[in-house]
């Protein structure tokens, strides 16, 4: 990439895999689990977080020299809250049904640990461009996990993807259902999100042994 130096490119690429916010840094789990029963909601959530974290990192990075360190958490919260209000209002205006599905979890982007974590760990000590890339990278790493979990839960749970019936019609018994396949409604319930993420972590760490934790 000519646009970005290798170091800058790593800011985006690292969080996608080996330094993933969810599976490695343990940040931002709450919303990752609660809204992944459908692929569409996962994608919208991922986009919202990319928007909030990218812009938030820029704002915090711009203000990093004038924020008194004692009240920085409150300042950060106000910045995030303002950005999240924008996202919430946009969703309510253009995708009302979806904003009903996401319900309080749009508001909970404010307390998404990824956002505060990146503000604290990166934006407070780095320049605007690098902070922006870091924000986009980490939010994208978060989004990827969301989309993977949402994909499996929607596919196995209701046999659809983005609302399209990809496995056939369960009532008319077409497609895969004609062989006696049944949807696993359990995948739509909340506990399965945890187990799917647990399995993802298992897969990732089996492939890269350096990530294995002490017991």
């Amino acid at each position, binding site marked *: 990439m000519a646009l970005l130096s290798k170091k800058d490119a790593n800011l985006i690429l690292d969080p996608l895999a080996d330094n993933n916010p969810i599976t490695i840094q343990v940040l931002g789990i*709450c919303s990752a689990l609660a809204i992944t029963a459908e692929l569409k909601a996962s994608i919208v959530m991922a986009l919202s977080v990319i928007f909030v974290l990218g812009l938030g990192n820029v704002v915090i990075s711009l203000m990093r020299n004038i924020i008194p360190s004692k009240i920085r958490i409150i300042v950060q*919260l106000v910045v995030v809250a303002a950005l999240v209000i924008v996202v919430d209002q946009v969703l309510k205006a253009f995708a009302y049904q979806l904003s009903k599905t996401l319900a309080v979890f749009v508001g909970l982007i404010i307390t998404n640990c990824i956002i505060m974590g990146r503000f604290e760990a990166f934006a407070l000590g780095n320049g605007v461009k690098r902070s922006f890339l870091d924000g986009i990278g980490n939010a994208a790493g978060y989004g990827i996990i969301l989309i993977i979990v949402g994909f499996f839960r929607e596919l196995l*749970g209701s046999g659809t993807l983005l609302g399209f019936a990809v496995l056939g019609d369960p009532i008319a018994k077409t497609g895969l259902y004609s062989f006696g396949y049944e949807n696993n409604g359990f995948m739509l319930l909340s506990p399965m999100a*945890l187990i799917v993420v647990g399995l993802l972590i298992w897969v990732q760490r089996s492939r890269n042994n350096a990530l294995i934790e002490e017991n």
Partner: protein
Amino acid sequence: MLEHIELFFKSIFIDNMVFATFLGMCSYLAVSKKVTTAVGLGAAVIFVLAVTVPLNWLLDQYLLRDGALAWLGPEYADYNLSFLSFILFIATIATMVQLVEIVVEKFSPALYNSLGIFLPLIAVNCAILGGSLFMQAREIPSLGLAFNYGLSSGIGWFLAIFAIAAIREKIRYSNVPPPLRGLGITFIITGLMAIGFMSFGGMLTGGDEAPVVPEPTTVQKTEKEELKLDKEQEETAVSFNSITKEKE
């Protein structure tokens, strides 16, 4: 009184913050390595929730919701400031957390040291803001119930982190597959515990009345199920009709 008892047990067991809505997972996973620290954080969460939920209920009731400003005079009755709720709720919470931090530092330095970085991070614990947002979304009718909701949700969170910390202390002596160690196995155990907690679902309704308020994740499914049920009922009704007609 009955509604208080019902809300209390419902928030602890059925709508448990960790197992049903995944709130506060970050600190739940990060601070659950030792039982003592887990208990400290759990207690702090109970306290902060029990204070902030009623405070935010007052804000919501007299400042934010549609027509809430009517007490200022009739010309203010048309205002709807609810889009400001995120920012006001989080401001209340951040202030309260600062207060708790000062109190804990003063009265229990040992606890303060062991909680370390996580005390200021209670402000960004989703469980706290989530408590206030759910309080708003579920339209809890009175201040007493709001306090009850905050307290019991906190207790539910406390129970969850206490249980997982105890399990993690034990699991250190087990032979877990290396890639699952630490985070992975904790996720899976939490999933299994959540399945266990689902069995509390029939506790208050006795299984006869309407099902428990569906969580956002399960809304779609229940709707679909209802549709299916409706169809089935229609079908049975139709077949019943045809039978009666045949008899005639």
